[in-house]
């Protein structure tokens, strides 16, 4: 963060931050839980799911329903992915 320069703000000057990026996730056939994450053409095994939570918001306009998973990959690195429960698509996003 830097100090406010006092320049006028407006929607055109705003850029979104931390937008979800499409992710390729392979799920277990039985449990439907994430099993592998495909990243840069590499198939990374998910060692364990550290946490999962649901975000259901804005049902009064464009309903948003996501199930987030915090994953520990086989190399020990962390990723946060979510499944859009309306379209079924997977995304990666910092939470």
């Amino acid at each position, binding site marked *: 963060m*830097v100090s406010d*320069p006092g*320049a006028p*703000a407006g929607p055109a000057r705003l*850029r979104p931050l*931390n937008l979800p990026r499409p992710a390729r996730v392979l799920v277990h056939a039985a449990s439907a839980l994430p099993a592998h994450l495909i990243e840069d053409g590499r198939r990374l095994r998910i060692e364990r799911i550290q*946490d999962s939570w649901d975000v259901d918001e804005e049902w009064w306009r464009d309903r948003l329903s996501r199930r987030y998973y915090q994953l520990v990959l086989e190399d020990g690195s962390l990723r946060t992915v979510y499944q859009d429960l309306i379209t079924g698509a997977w995304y990666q996003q910092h939470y």
Partner: protein
Amino acid sequence: MPVACVSIPHFALRVAILDQPELDGTPLVLGAPAGARPVVLDATPEAAARGIRPGLGLREVPALCPAALILPPHPLREATALNAIITALEQVSPAVEAAPERPGCLYVDLTGLDRALGAPEDAARLLLERIAPVLRPRLGLAPGKFAAKVAAGGAPPGGYRLVEPAAVVDFLARAPVAWLPFPPELLRKLERFGLRRLGDLANLPVTAVQARFGPAGRRAWELASGRDDATIQPRHCSEHVTETLVLPAPITSREMLLVALTRLVGSAFARPALRTRHVRHLHLRAEIEGNRSWELTATLREPGGQHRMITALSYRLQAIMLPGPIETMTIELSGLMNSVGRQELLPGLRSRRPRQLAEAGQHLKQRYGVSGLFRVVEVEPWSRIPERRQALLVYDP
């Protein structure tokens, strides 16, 4: 017979009878909770025989049936009873689903259990034995969830009804369309078209039904035709910690409630299961004088420890009106995860060179027309949707 449906009509009232068996046979009426419109929510058959129906004003009940007893809802008692039933049924099959839209309706997946449970009649009896007879459970056994629910609806109290796979279509054909799990508007539309029985719907071409009623119509046609591939969703058994505090004297003030909550949360976090762990969800239940109950569920935007939990609870309690003196409090903490340290930026490490940064931005702007620099601004820092919390704003020195 892969699916069993256990149905307990008038669930809230039958659970009240479970606590007070002497009420069995008395005309019972379930009233609205405090603060809501005073109408009848449910009535036992004894009360219904005297003309008491859901939606009727509570003031009219004594005039219609002076012996009727009006009971307030007791969500804590109902949730405890439902959990006990699910746990008992899980002894027979691990896949038990409580239908969210209808309290007291449970589905049990019996796939692959034929050899363990024996004939369908034996399985039905075994399941019914797990439920207190005073609840008057009805059981239906059929190849799919919908057919099993319709079968349970036609079973006698404490009894069961079997529907063989080959007989599903004929069995469903006689059932009224009101059994379909769809909003009343769609059911009324079907009836306006003269489709009163499921057989009337199943006899139509699926394309015509879908063209007139959309995707819901197609689903209704599939169910009416015995095509039901809905799977049973067993409850998610997440790790949780429960702590109960019986108060020495009923609490009436908000300040005392907060003191008691602080102690309750402190006891919960003293448990080994919560050591070095954070919590995301909390469910607070309170038993209130006069055999009533009250509950609060909250999800924190970010998991927190003991102090964050107390702050979140005290903030939420400011906005509520206590329905009466509290006798017992129970807190259930779930969504447990390892605690994560958060390193804030130390004051001494803040950028000391805003002037140099502004100069660099001006040079870039002179050369390329734009500075290409952005600063992070908070938009909705409280949002649970990550991309709404912050945005980049053009940094124009």
